């Protein structure tokens, strides 16, 4: 940004020397002023990135000791930035488990309780409110999402002549989002859940462009959650409060489901439209549905092979 100088050689004539000296002086002053001007907004930063956080390695390269230190550091960061005492754990997948989700479209009435529960459970930012689940109001007789309405606002649901299609992360077997990530910050775990290392994501948002289901969200600014609404039971790869500038997504509430609980959206659903479980277990309800109902997946032509299934119960 400095003014170029010394490009013309020539003899060392005293006036020239004096002029180039002045030029250099003015140049330096201008450079210093520029630097001050450029960096002015940076002075208002209060919580910068610590050196430990900056140098932190990829999740898969961490030793158990290191991971433990990191979990404690994150707990301290939440206490400092949000004034809430929380526990952050690293919860690993269970052996012999591959999760599947099924949704009965005959029962879903578009009440969106699942959306609310998800926001609460997963500590999503409230301003603007981030939601993992989108409930589309569809005109009867169509499967074309482009005819859907996301912002329906009726006194009562279901509205006449409509049905409701909730869409969240489909936990694909062939996920386009993990393939495109330039730094392997996102991958699919052995139990079929696609996760993100929020401390490794560089925020390029290529995965968002790649996802055919709009399942990924970006933290455009620092997350805002009132301390009393923070869910203190946090998982490193799931519902801990995400840093600014990274992508996040639904993880089938892995901090719950890997310990035998149901995802928050299923637990809260008043119509019982949702069925969740281990597809590898022959006796599970999800397995019964996959075997006995006429199940379909969204955007089959995209070749993503979702682990999220829809069916009509008639």
């Amino acid at each position, binding site marked *: 940004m400095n*003014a170029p100088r010394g490009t013309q050689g020539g003899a060392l004539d005293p006036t020239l020397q004096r002029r180039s000296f002045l030029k250099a002086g003015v140049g330096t002053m201008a450079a210093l002023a520029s630097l001050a001007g450029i960096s002015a907004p940076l002075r208002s930063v209060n919580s910068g990135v610590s050196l430990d956080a900056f140098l932190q390695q990829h999740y898969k390269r961490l030793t158990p000791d290191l991971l433990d230190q990191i979990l404690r550091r994150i707990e301290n960061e939440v206490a400092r930035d949000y004034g809430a005492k929380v526990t952050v754990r690293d919860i690993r997948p269970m052996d012999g488990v591959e999760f599947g989700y099924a949704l009965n479209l005959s029962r879903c009435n578009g009440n969106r309780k699942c959306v609310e529960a998800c926001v609460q459970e997963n500590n999503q930012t409230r301003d603007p409110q981030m939601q993992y689940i989108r409930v589309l109001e569809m005109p009867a007789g169509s499967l074309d999402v482009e005819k859907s309405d996301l912002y329906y606002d009726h006194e009562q649901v279901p509205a006449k002549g409509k049905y409701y299609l909730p869409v969240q992360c489909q936990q694909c077997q062939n996920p386009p989002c993990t393939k495109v990530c330039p730094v392997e910050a996102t991958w699919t775990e052995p139990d079929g859940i696609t996760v993100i290392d929020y401390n490794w994501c560089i925020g390029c948002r290529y995965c*968002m462009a790649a996802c055919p289901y*709009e399942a990924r969200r970006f933290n455009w600014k620092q997350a805002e959650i009132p301390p009393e609404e923070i869910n203190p039971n946090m998982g490193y790869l799931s519902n801990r409060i995400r840093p600014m500038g990274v992508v996040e997504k639904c993880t089938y509430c892995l901090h719950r489901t890997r310990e035998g609980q149901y995802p928050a959206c299923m637990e809260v659903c008043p119509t019982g439209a949702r069925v969740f479980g281990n597809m590898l277990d022959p006796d599970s309800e999800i397995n019964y549905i996959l075997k006995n109902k006429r199940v379909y997946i969204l955007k089959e032509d995209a070749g993503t092979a979702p682990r999220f299934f829809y069916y009509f119960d008639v």
Partner: protein
Amino acid sequence: MAVLTVLTVIGGNAYSRQLVQGLAVTGMTDQVSWGAYIANFTYLVGVAAAAVMLVIPAYIYRNKDMHDVVLFGELLAIAAIVMALLFVVVDLGRPDRFWHLIPVIGKFNFPGSMLSWDVIVLNGYLLLNLHICGYLLFMKYMDRKPTILFYMPFVLVAIAWAVSIHTVTAFLYVGLVGRPFWNSAIVAPRFLGSAFTAGPGILIIVFQIIRRMSTYQISDRALHILRNIVTVSLLVNLFLLGCEAFKEFYSESVHSSSAKYLFFGLHGHDALVPWMWGAMAMEFAAATILIIPPLAQRISLLNAACVLAIVGIWIEKGMGLIVPGFVPTPLGNIVEYVPSLNEALVCVGIWSFGLLIFSWMLHVSIPIMSGEFRHQSKEV
């Protein structure tokens, strides 16, 4: 130069604000997650690739006129790549984690991610051009004859590489099955067509500025060769655009909604429509001037055609390609995108910075090329 410096500082200030407050200061949303930054990046990769259109006649066909100017084309490529890389950096949510992209130290998803390919080809192209320009300028400065072995192999690699940078950048978009607007085999050829129009178009203007501001001789014949390149490329670009439009509108499949949004508006949303038709009008006007010889031979009209083509393609490749890829979203939601003031200032800052580097490189290289600045002088 002073104006450019001031604009660069304003842009730098806007970027600092973005660093503190997050990308929320831009007009981007979860629905339209890439905007002006990535649009400018795409355009500039094209400008950089276009240097090859001077390199081929100069080094392969040994055209004397092009030989005198090829270096400036390569310098423009360097400045364009630097700008393109800066546009990627300002688009990152976490630029502090840039080191994650460095192989071995970080975790580089190669060959899986097209973005990692892009990192390699862009940086490789930058190094190739720095080497070629640096070596040839240094030899000229030392008044020695350049050894062909030290630059020719790099020139040959750079030719293929130039095509690859824009192809890989096109594949960033083409590879996304969930975005039918981009998921088309014609995107890479269209990128090259538009790049070979805009890049040489910019150089035609730059060469006339050099002619006016310095004593360096640039022949009319060099301008005419560039004019022919611009003409052919622009016609190819328009033809490919027509092919794409035919496929989208004649078949009228559900996948045509982004194209409908771009050209005619969708469900009452039509922010891009005037821009796209404006861009088309500019490109057609430029093409009309260029294909009528008496018009194109008048330098003022040639300049006008170049400016029209440069701006038209900037709109078509920017707003006309990146934004409609996101509208409507894969779930049918329509959210329109308008860059914020802060975002625009960052863009202006990067452009100013790039032009600053380019003019600085010209300041150094023109005296060397014309022989005014040689090793004999005591002060080095």
